């Protein structure tokens, strides 16, 4: 992923208008009140990395669409929170990480796992509750872990992963191993005590953690303006004396740039950063969500004007990547997801004795 160092400003995409939600005006990307992280050291991604971004985003999109279908067929049960529409956040941030950096997430995490390089066969098998799944069929949709790729899991309690990320940061500093952590959480988690307690300690001890709040404008079905005294989340780093920056979360390059700068800052020992990824989910909160809290027009507006895959296509076009190359990637991705579905359909169920495995070590 070594990229030639250029000034980020030269490769920053033209800022696109962001569709304005009926419920919030806080959607246009702008720097937080506490000063954006300096962009001087940011390296724009190479063409190869940008192609990989597109591939991973296309993989997530296709994977999630097919997971949604499988849910409808009853092959996936429990809750299933799809990431469609937010692919640029996870992919942009994940590709800014070094292989040894940690990422951790809430429960909309299949996308983040795939963004980090997890095997779609094993992610899908986990959704299917099968033994080759990442948690041997015992985690399901909300608990995908791929520790080999330093993807430290999906967690089902809103905000509960934020102290864990802070602990990874603590360990990085304790061991002085040069690693850092990117912690993803949804906008609703920012009102949890876990967030506030963690940011206080991370700032106090200058821990190498990048906190990424994915502001998709709704906590389940509640618009952010109904549940937040301050809807400009980039300003909610202020109490802790750390930078907060709003990023266009529909644009993978913007996410890559901001995450890379925040990671560099973290690794210099300057402490944590809060990134507010302003994004939108195209599907409901979960498969059980009838979406009565927002209009079809609003969803269509985002799908038409802010689809992260289309935005990425725009970047690649500037690099001379034509439709034929993208279609080839798309068909490869489709085949990969088809294979994941076939693999999961045929994968073995856990055995009865597996029920008791991994409760305690032996």
């Amino acid at each position, binding site marked *: 992923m070594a990229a030639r160092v250029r000034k980020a400003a030269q490769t920053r995409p033209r800022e696109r208008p962001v569709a304005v939600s009926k419920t919030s005006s806080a959607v246009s990307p702008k720097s937080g009140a506490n000063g954006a992280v300096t962009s001087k050291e940011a390296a724009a991604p190479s063409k190869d990395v940008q192609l990989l971004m597109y591939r991973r985003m296309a993989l997530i999109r296709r994977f999630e669409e097919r997971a949604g279908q499988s849910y409808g067929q009853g092959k996936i049960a429990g809750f299933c929170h799809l990431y469609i529409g937010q692919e640029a956040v996870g992919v942009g941030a994940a590709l800014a990480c070094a292989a040894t950096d940690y990422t951790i997430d809430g429960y909309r995490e299949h996308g983040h796992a795939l963004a980090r390089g997890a095997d779609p066969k094993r992610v899908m098998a986990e959704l299917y509750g099968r033994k080759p799944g990442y948690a041997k069929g015992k985690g399901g949709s909300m608990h995908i872990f791929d520790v080999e790729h330093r993807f*430290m899991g999906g967690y089902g309690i809103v905000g509960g992963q934020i*102290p864990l990320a802070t*602990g990874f940061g*603590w360990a990085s500093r304790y061991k002085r191993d040069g690693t850092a952590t990117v912690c993803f959480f949804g906008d609703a988690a920012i009102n949890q*005590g876990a967030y506030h307690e963690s940011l206080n300690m991370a700032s106090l001890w200058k821990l190498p953690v990048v906190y990424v709040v994915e502001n998709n404008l709704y906590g389940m079905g509640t618009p952010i303006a109904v549940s937040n005294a301050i809807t400009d989340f980039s300003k909610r780093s202020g109490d802790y004396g750390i930078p907060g920056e709003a990023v266009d979360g529909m644009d993978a390059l913007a996410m890559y740039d901001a995450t890379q700068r925040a990671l560099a800052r973290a690794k210099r020992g300057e402490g944590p950063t809060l990134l507010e990824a302003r994004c939108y989910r195209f599907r409901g909160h979960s498969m059980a969500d009838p979406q009565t809290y927002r209009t079809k027009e609003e969803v269509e507006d985002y799908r038409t004007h802010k689809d992260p895959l289309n935005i990425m296509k725009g970047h690649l076009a500037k690099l001379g990547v034509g439709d034929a190359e993208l279609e080839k990637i798309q068909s490869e991705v489709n085949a990969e997801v088809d294979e994941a579905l076939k693999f999961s359909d045929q994968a073995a169920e856990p055995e009865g004795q597996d029920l008791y495995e991994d409760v305690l070590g032996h």
Partner: protein
Amino acid sequence: MPVIQYREALNQALREEMSRDPNIFIMGEEVGAYDGAFKVTQGLMKEFGKERVVDSPISELGFVGLGIGASMVGLRPVIEVMTWNFAILAMDQIVNNAAKVRYMSGGQLHCPIVFRGPTGAGTQLSSQHSQMLEAQYAYFPGLKVVTPGTPRDAKGLLKAALREQDPVVFMESELLYSVKGEVETGELVIPIGQAEVKRPGEHVTVVCWHRMIYPALEAATKLAQEGIEVEVVDMRTVRPLDLPTVLASVRKTNRCVVVEEAWPIASVGSSIVDAVQREAFDDLDAPVIRLNAKDVPMPYNKKLEGMYAPTADDVAAAVKKVLYIG
């Protein structure tokens, strides 16, 4: 053998294990510069430095979760909760993350971490500072819950906890910190999950743990003068429960009293009684009696506080009742 306080035994365990393993660090409220609210960590910051003995904000959910995260990536945190009363704020992290991450990740991750601090009755500290909370944690698969009553057990079990691969809830007692007992110098590791017969006897089995071993032993001494030999079984660990030791004792004495400082509903003692009646029904000569704290929050008034938990007289009366001589 040297006679030391319970708190000194814990301090020895921490010092010895920190010297052995550089991945162990201690974090908690006032554990460092103040030397610990109950002086368990006395001198450790001076000896091991601020990197390894860390004063945290009063922010239980945050630093408990931080410790769990650190344990997931290779460190061995000792997280001191000033009292387990305050850890209720951090329960989500302990029960939803530490206890379950091994299972939820299919064995990819685990949490070698020790959460420690005092639980149980205090000294007129009223309702929010005096409660016995072991059942809260014993409830959850994925945790080990240790409740040492003597200085020797405190040292040996804490050293074992610091070598565990799983999260350990280590419950001390404010009222036990100054209790003295014989403790070996240096290496002493007592396996987690093994009960100990603290006093052998043939007429009645009294099962207890934590602070309740003292009224149990006191009652046994008194009853011995009347010719009643009580076998006192100290569980030492309430998850996993060493039921074979309890059942062996009951099969010998045919009578059982369970004494716990906790409230009666959904308690650890209720699980022990359940196992005894199921596994040793034919060996019982009387129904099992269970003694508990009164089913009310702890009162402040000294007289009322004294009525709260089982006493040696309560234990003696229960023993006589299962012998049908009460």
